[in-house]
């Protein structure tokens, strides 16, 4: 990892399109300003990891039958006629 020392108000450029400014240093907190192309998503790493993990969990979900079984279990105990569904849905 490249490590640079910067003072308050100093900046770092990444390529042509990204500028990172150390806008304030107070105690053990640093405020950072980021100028980047709009289409580039910028997040705190914790949030980035959280969304990534949630997407991965979602991508590893049920298959079609498992989702059906799940929906059947929710559609209700009283609806015994539900088993005929697979025979009628093609019509």
């Amino acid at each position: 990892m490249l490590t640079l020392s910067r003072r308050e108000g100093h900046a770092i450029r990444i390529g042509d399109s990204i500028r990172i400014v150390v806008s304030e240093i107070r105690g053990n907190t640093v405020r950072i300003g980021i100028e980047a192309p709009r289409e580039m998503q910028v997040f705190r790493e914790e949030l980035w990891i959280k969304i990534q993990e949630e997407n991965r969990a979602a991508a590893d979900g049920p298959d079609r039958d498992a989702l059906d079984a799940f929906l059947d279990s929710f559609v209700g105990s009283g609806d015994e006629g539900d088993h005929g569904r697979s025979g009628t849905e093609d019509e």
Partner: protein
Amino acid sequence: MAEAELKMSDTLSFTNHRLGEIEVEADAILNFPAGILGFSECRRFALLPHRPGTPFFWLIPIEREDIAFVVVNPENFFPDYCPSLTQDQLAPLSLENDKDHSLGMLVVVSFRDGKPTANLRAPLILDLAQRRAVQAVQIGKEFDTQSPLFQAPTK
């Protein structure tokens, strides 16, 4: 016969391990120019309803056979849900003033221990006319990544 062949050229066929053979109209493909976090290699997806009469859809990447997302329209489960959408978040959609942009919204569903939850922290915003979509991550903490899809009745 010629008509059938013509039709074939307008459809796209691919395989998904969870859903089998998928065939979709080529112009029904959804493009995610910024990808989905964790799956940057996937940019093109098919969006198919699960079954008639259910609010569930499948979002199926063309570039990967081993994954598929269950998604729902949040209106069906979270009627008051109103994420904030900034110009920056929607930038990957390249919204141009002179074009028709009817935006739709979906949220991704996870199943843990048989309990479905929706990721309200990162809704999918769809430009239905231009067939582009973006996962608009919410910076604020007011929305949960795991909001139960079915809540115990409060009344």
